[in-house]
């Protein structure tokens, strides 16, 4: 048995990656459709679906808040993890910089969205 094995810290990132991957697989397409296509074009959904009062109410609701937070943060953690690995795979050997850029931006986005959501009150 080899001794002096270093324990990997990957589980944290990997768990976030997995959760984000699952969430985006389940809800990603439909969300893009709603926010990016249906609402702007006024298709399918009633007019005013994403009007300010409605969205504010949604973001102030406990569950809505959680959902928005989860989507933004986890999507980004998922993406950060994958992109970081892909850089490694295509031979751009990611130094600390790439790591900071990928996970750092996910981390920043997490903080920002948490800040905004908390600011919106309950």
């Amino acid at each position: 048995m080899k001794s002096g094995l270093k324990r990997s810290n990957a589980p944290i990132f990997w768990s976030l990656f997995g959760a984000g991957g699952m969430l985006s697989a389940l809800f990603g397409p439909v969300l893009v459709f709603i926010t990016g296509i249906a609402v702007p074009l006024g298709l399918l959904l009633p007019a005013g679906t994403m009007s300010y009062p409605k969205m504010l109410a949604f973001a102030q609701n406990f569950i809505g808040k959680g959902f928005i937070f989860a989507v933004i943060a986890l999507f980004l953690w998922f993406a950060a993890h994958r992109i970081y690995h892909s850089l490694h795979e295509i031979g751009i050997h990611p130094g600390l910089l790439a790591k900071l850029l990928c996970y750092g931006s996910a981390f920043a986005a997490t903080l920002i969205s948490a800040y905004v959501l908390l600011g919106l009150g309950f």
Partner: protein
Amino acid sequence: MSDTKKIIEIEVLRYQPESDTEPHLEVYKVPFSDDMSVLQGVQYIKDNFDGSLTFRWSCRMAICGSCGMMINGIPKLSCETFLRDYYPNRVRVEAMAHFPIEKDLVVDLSGFIGKLESIQPYIIPREARSLEQGEYIQSPEQFNAYIQFTSCINCTLCYAACPQFGLNPDFIGPAAIALLHRYNMDSRDGAAEQRMELVASEEGVFNCSAVGYCSEVCPKHVDPANAVNINKTNAAKDYFLRFLSPKGGSK
């Protein structure tokens, strides 16, 4: 056997460490019949054209695991891959990817063997039992939990398939982790915790990015990707549990 033999072109990646600086391709024209495997084609070249052509083989029946090669870029056992499936096109044969080439089609497997040794691939009994007490009893469910992972023939095709191993040769890799999982899942064994240290280490399962090609090429349907990925979950659980456990912290 018919008299008018068909001729197939076999292109072989040659590397002679004592005279070549790098590998190069050479083409041979080999007469073949429909029941001839790629291995037999290569043997024909050795027997008739160039005795210095070097490759591993033994059983010819896809069980000893020695004859893995890249055949048209895909890792396969050459003894169960048939020339007729390539004819009339040329077939290209190279040493297994991701391993250092020793000579021609022979690669250096010492790293892999070291990994096999490192996973403690033997029963560390959960409960001692003497020979007089007879065999351990295993229910069909207990048996089915690990049997799939016992069929690995150590052919290392999965390593030739795994880009993460190619990028990081220290990665313990699919087959060794599948074997580790085999012992962890065996109801007679009680050493899963001991093996966790390796699973969770920097050489461990988190090198895998679920490419999944390892399972795709595995000739024995071991599904090593499954073993690797189940152990990611196990390692993650273990990781968080360590924070929660009263002893606290990881080693």
